[in-house]
């Protein structure tokens, strides 16, 4: 816009002629010099020059955001001579050859100077907006290679291949696995034994160990359907949604705070977590689940007169990412939030690293920068925070009741705010009037205060009793003397003296007053008074005028104008003396005396009003951390990803390589609804493949594609592409049902193989890409902690809600440990509060998903601190004690039976006779050794916590027996057989 307006100004004509018709003519076609400008020069100007030389600042009349701005306003003239670098002022300035050296903050690098010189030599090409697009998006058309990337191809319904050992096949999955194994001359591993399979599938579907009862029931059931019965029981359990919901929460990078810098709280994040758990338990079709998370707020409510609370909560998927809300480059902050959403949608749903195209076209995948900003356009038209321009932006909370209801609360709150302001206004007005009344006397008070200050110190008092209060009474004497001499109010004079006392603050503005000699003092005091009056009259007038506008707006029920702001540093003498406890301030107690009677009455009435308003505030409506529609926004490409350098405008759209020229029409404000539909369409080959692969991975420990969040060129290709497509089409055919997929998978023989690894597999397929055996896997941290609590017998299966306290967006700015003490909770691990900046220690210790970004697969490490935790933590000590007490509970149980019980509870395994003997030997040896030791510490400590029992002495076992069993229980819980699922 600015461009067109400026084009016609006479001063630029000459320069423009040179630029457009000179050597640079013809550049608009999009050739090399243009690219040179866009990649080298425009970013350089943006980074180094435009903070002073832009359209707003125009220092020296120079504006380096536009071609015509090169011709300085005023008498400066053009700073470059196209084609002649040597005489161009700009070049001489950056070379530090002329008097003006630019930038003043330091010479540019030699390369940068060379680039600028080259650019001027080329004739200073400066392409217009029309063609600037060229470098924003290098490739319009996609190459055949780009288009034919495997994961972009339509999902093909695959027929299960024929196999030689047809009797191994249980579900069609087995055809795909076995066909390949047979082809490579591999044997599938033998089936896992009954209890190993029970333990595997129980952890897999619920994240918990099978209980003794479940084990016994299963062993007792020798029908052909025994396994099916178990699977159906597990799928029906609410524990299932907690386990599988948590898988999705990894992908959705769920947490309860903004993380990054100030770690503000998301007070309602837990509602999204509960929504996810419920969605899995209810087997909500995945396409709908996805749609709700992208655009749930835009779906109509199921019941008239309500809002779609569930849908709003679901958008937490977009809303709950890490956010840097205290960032001061507010525009960058906003686009970082948008970037984060593009990233999570890309990785979680499409398996693409879309965020790589923020600064340039994607280096590996056919995602153009243009595609990125087309997506950004959608999220830019979506509300991210309450006010992104605020100093520290406020999080956005959406009410979960109809507007008519929430409006009552908010308008009531607004009334409170306005009443509060009215009160402040009266106080301000009356205080100002008071100040102006007493202002003429200020000079006298200042002189008197100095007189008291300079009075010779009184002699040291003789008695010890008066010594304590020595200094003050004597100053008082001087004060009273001086006050009566000048006929001043002693109380007010004391305040002035207090004010002028030295503090550890640097107060240069008082130096003159404090240092003035006796003769110049009256003049100096008068100067201070006069300066005070200048500021006071200006400010008071401004404020009075504003109050008039405020009252007018209030009467009309309109939004009142913003209060004028003053800079406190401008006249510190004024600011400091007029605070309510300053020498010219009016304290609350003085109001009645100082304010006009009418004003005081109004004030009293308003204060009563305010109390009543606060009392009758309706309950706060339920809220969610969610997103909403924002004003539609015309997004432009940011050159080089720099939010301050705008390029061509882009429409809202989805990545072009995936739409095959059939870009769905976007009519909604943000386009999220269209995005949701496009993502969840069975036609979208990525969405369904990515989720089918995840389901496989969550069962088998590894995906068919081993890079679950990256199906692009840097990702791994699928080990079994036909199987992946088979699973994908089955998933869609089943109505996007997770539970249908679980049955398909856990009933397969591929799933039921043991972890036994043949030497052929170990040597030639160490990563088990052929799936010739089941992968042994370490429990994740939820499984570890939940198992410990279950075995201790203390686990609390209460569902949902939050363990985080407080409602607002409170942040972490103290060094007191803020996070929740996980060791004091018995709830399942997924319910522990997740403050991003302070994830509970135990969780990070065992490779919890970093909630900073979508996690496709957690790592699984074995490090010493984990071993220390198992050996020494109070948590494990408590758990092993509870465990040992359970094992010891029955007096008559023989020890062999106790060992057997401990094994079933932890390892879901029958010990051999030798293992039982070994255990009993260990326990008795431990007991014998510990008898020699002083166990008092152990016993006294035991009186704390959940195992504290008043009838402790009545137990049939003593401290050393308990200690020995506790030690053995610890060995079991620390063992590889426990922590690994076979």
């Amino acid at each position, binding site marked *: 816009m600015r461009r067109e307006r400026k084009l016609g100004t006479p001063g630029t004509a000459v320069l423009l002629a040179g630029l457009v018709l000179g050597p640079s003519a013809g550049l608009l076609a999009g050739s090399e010099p243009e690219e040179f400008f866009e990649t080298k020069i425009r970013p350089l100007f943006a980074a180094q020059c435009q903070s002073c030389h832009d359209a707003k600042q125009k220092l020296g009349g120079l504006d380096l955001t536009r071609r015509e701005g090169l011709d300085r306003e005023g008498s400066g003239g053009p700073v470059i001579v196209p084609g002649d670098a040597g005489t161009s002022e700009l070049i001489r300035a950056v070379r530090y050859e002329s008097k003006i050296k630019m930038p003043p903050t330091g010479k540019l690098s030699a390369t940068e100077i060379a680039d600028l010189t080259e650019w001027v030599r080329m004739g200073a090409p400066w392409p217009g907006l029309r063609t600037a697009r060229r470098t924003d998006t290098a490739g319009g058309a996609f190459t055949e290679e780009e288009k034919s990337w495997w994961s972009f191809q339509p999902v093909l319904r695959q027929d299960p291949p024929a196999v030689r050992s047809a009797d191994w096949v249980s579900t069609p999955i087995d055809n795909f696995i076995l066909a390949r194994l047979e082809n490579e001359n591999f044997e599938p591993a033998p089936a896992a034994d009954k209890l190993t399979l029970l333990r595997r599938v129980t952890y897999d579907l619920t994240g918990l160990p099978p209980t003794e009862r479940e084990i016994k029931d299963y062993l007792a059931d020798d029908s052909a359907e025994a396994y099916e019965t178990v699977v159906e029981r597990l799928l029906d359990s609410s524990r299932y949604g907690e386990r599988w919901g948590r898988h999705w929460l990894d992908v959705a990078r769920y947490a309860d705070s903004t993380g990054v810098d100030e770690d503000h709280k998301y007070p309602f994040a837990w509602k999204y977590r509960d929504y996810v758990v419920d969605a899995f338990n209810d087997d909500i079709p995945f396409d709908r689940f996805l749609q709700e998370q992208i655009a749930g707020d835009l779906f109509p409510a199921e019941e008239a007169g309500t809002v779609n609370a569930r849908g709003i909560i679901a958008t937490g998927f977009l809303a709950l990412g890490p956010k840097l809300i*205290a960032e001061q480059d507010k525009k960058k902050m906003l686009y970082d939030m948008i970037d984060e959403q593009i990233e999570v949608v890309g990785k979680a749903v499409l398996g693409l690293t879309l965020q790589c195209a923020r600064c340039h076209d994607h280096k590996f995948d056919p995602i153009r920068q243009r595609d990125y900003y087309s997506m950004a356009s959608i999220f830019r038209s979506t509300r991210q925070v309450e006010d992104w321009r605020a100093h520290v932006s406020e999080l956005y909370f959406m009410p979960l009741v109809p507007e008519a209801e929430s409006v009552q609360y908010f308008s009531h709150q607004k009334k409170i705010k306005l009443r509060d302001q009215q009160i402040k206004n009266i106080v301000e007005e009356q205080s100002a009037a008071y100040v102006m009344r007493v202002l003429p006397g200020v000079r006298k008070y200042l002189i008197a205060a100095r007189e008291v200050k300079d009075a010779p110190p009184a002699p040291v008092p003789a008695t010890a009793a008066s010594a304590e209060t020595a200094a003050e009474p004597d100053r008082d004497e001087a004060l009273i003397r001086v006050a009566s001499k000048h006929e001043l109010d002693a109380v007010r004079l004391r305040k002035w003296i207090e004010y002028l006392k030295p503090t550890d603050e640097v107060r*240069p503005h008082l130096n003159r007053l404090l240092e003035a000699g006796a003769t110049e003092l009256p003049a100096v005091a008068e100067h201070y008074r006069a300066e005070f009056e200048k500021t006071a009259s200006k400010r008071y007038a401004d404020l009075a005028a504003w109050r008039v506008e405020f009252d007018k707006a209030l009467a009309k029920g309109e939004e009142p104008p913003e209060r004028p702001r003053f800079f406190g540093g401008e006249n510190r003498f004024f600011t400091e003396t007029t605070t309510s406890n300053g020498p010219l301030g009016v304290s609350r107690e003085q109001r009645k005396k100082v304010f006009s009677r009418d004003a005081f009455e109004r004030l009293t009435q308003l204060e009563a009003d305010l109390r009543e308003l606060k009392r009758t505030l309706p309950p706060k409506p339920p809220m969610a951390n969610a997103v909403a529609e924002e004003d539609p926004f015309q997004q432009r490409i940011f050159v080089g990803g720099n939010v301050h350098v705008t390029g061509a405008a882009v429409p809202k759209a989805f990545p072009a390589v995936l739409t095959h020229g059939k870009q769905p029409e976007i009519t909604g404000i943000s386009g999220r609804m269209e995005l949701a539909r496009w993502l969840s369409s069975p036609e979208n080959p990525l969405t369904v493949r990515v989720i089918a692969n995840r389901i496989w991975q969550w069962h088998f420990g590894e995906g068919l594609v081993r890079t679950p969040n990256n199906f692009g060129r840097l990702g791994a290709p699928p080990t079994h592409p036909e199987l992946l497509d088979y699973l994908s089409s089955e998933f869609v055919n089943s109505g996007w049902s997770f539970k249908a997929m679980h049955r398909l998978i856990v009933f397969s023989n591929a799933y039921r193989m043991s972890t036994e690894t043949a030497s052929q597999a170990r040597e030639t397929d160490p990563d088990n890409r052929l799936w010739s055996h089941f992968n042994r896997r370490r429990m994740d941290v939820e499984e570890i902690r939940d198992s410990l609590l279950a075995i201790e017998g203390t686990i609390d299966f209460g569902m949902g809600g939050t363990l985080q306290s407080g409602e607002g967006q409170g942040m972490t700015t103290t*060094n007191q440990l803020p996070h929740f003490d996980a060791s004091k909770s018995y709830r399942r691990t997924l319910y522990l509060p997740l403050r991003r900046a302070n994830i509970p220690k135990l969780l990070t210790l065992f490779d919890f998903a970093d909630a900073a970004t979508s996690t496709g697969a957690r790592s699984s490490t074995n490090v010493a601190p984990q071993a220390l935790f198992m050996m020494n933590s109070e948590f494990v000590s408590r758990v092993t004690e509870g465990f040992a007490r359970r094992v010891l509970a029955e007096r008559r149980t023989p020890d062999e039976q106790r060992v057997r019980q401990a094994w079933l509870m932890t390892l879901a395994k029958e010990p051999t006779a030798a293992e039982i003997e070994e255990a009993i030997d260990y326990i008795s040896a431990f007991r014998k050794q510990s008898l020699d030791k002083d166990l008092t510490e152990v016993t006294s400590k035991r009186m704390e916590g959940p195992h504290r029992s008043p009838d402790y002495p009545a137990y049939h076992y003593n401290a050393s027996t308990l200690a020995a069993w506790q030690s053995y229980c610890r060995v079991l819980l620390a063992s*590889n057989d426990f922590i690994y699922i076979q």
Partner: protein
Amino acid sequence: MLLRWSTCGFGLLGLRGLLAAEESRNPLAPKQPHLQARAKRAIFIFMHGGPSHLDIYDPKPRLERDHGKPLPFERPLTFAEEQVGGLLKSPFQFKRHGESGIPLSELFPKLARHVDDMCIIRSMVGDSVAHGGALMQLHTGTNTFTRPSWGSWVVYGLGTENQNLPGFITLKPTLFHGGSKNYSAGFLPAAYEGTAIGYAALGPDDLKEPIQYLERKGLSPELQRFELDMLQKMNRRSAEQANFDPQLEGRIQAFELAARMQTEAPEAFDIAKESEITRKLYGLDQEETRDLGWQCLVARRLSERGVRFVQVSHTYRVGNPVGWDAHSRLVPNHVGRAKQVDQPISALLTDMKARGLLDDTLVICSGEFGRTPVAQSGDGRDHNPYGYTSWMAGAGVKHGFIYGATDEFGYHAVEDRMHIHDLHATVLHILGLDHKKLTYFHGGRDFRLTDVAGNVAEKLLA
């Protein structure tokens, strides 16, 4: 090609498998550096809040002259935009010290004796005007995302010398402005995560068990070993049954390392073993200096034992509620803070030098940014990431040396600008790592501490 693949392909895979197994057994084993290392390990002293370079390291006569006048050029973005006023001269006196004649202000009388061992970088540059972003950039290279801490990168690149102690230890870190993200391993394996010893609010006396879970109360070492032997017997048996799956092997090793740490680590933190003179030197007998003194002394003990990267933090806590963040009342703030750090830091340099540790240890000291030459609220200074001072000492850097410069107001770095990326590249270089080669593949691409930036400041290398 095909033939070659089929003959050596599996052999290669086998070798990679073996290496992977070794890595999973001990990810912290010492590794060969890319380059000739100039220092073997590092201590990073972090000053939280943003100490004022203009009042400590970087005297500006021009501020003296133009005190109270407006800044003569466009002021870049600051944090507290509205309260910023005219130029503010330093209320502190500067004096030249040592043979090098490097000036330091009166705030650091003790550190001033070490200027001939220091390499003062007066041209630091960062990208964030707010604390959170600035802390994270200093610690991880980015102010926007969660990325591995530089300590994690160092240990990932070099492993560590002492297998009985963690390779990256951060003493009493801050819990906010990024909190644990400042020492997290990010996407690197958890083995490279910084081990936090307590947190800022705790005093040295609250840290009886410095490393978490190091001690089991009420059980004798003999019985513990007896228990561990039983565990390892079971574990070895199942590993045998599983054909020595490297994961299971790795876990057996982890328990052995843990047992060794239990004996070694408490000793490393036991400052009672130090002489009275040493403890006094670090200021452990004074309330003001006790906290940082303890950290500095422990840092020396850890370095001495081969811990690769140790961080010491002077951060917000009781008696120091806002760190160096002097938005107002610069004088009492900086006088108070300087009293807390001057003695401990100079003691660390004295002690390290006497023990020869400065010959192979790099010491780095930095805040998250400096402060503005313009006043805030009349007697304070706002945040300034555009030009500020950090310093290094010890192995790998020139001594008694000033690197870079700010403009005559101390606002922008103008000479030999040292962006945080450059600082990171330089520190890695000194430790023998090429910042361009130290990469980790994650989420579809290789990542670096320095992202796509960073230049080694060759001029300051010794």
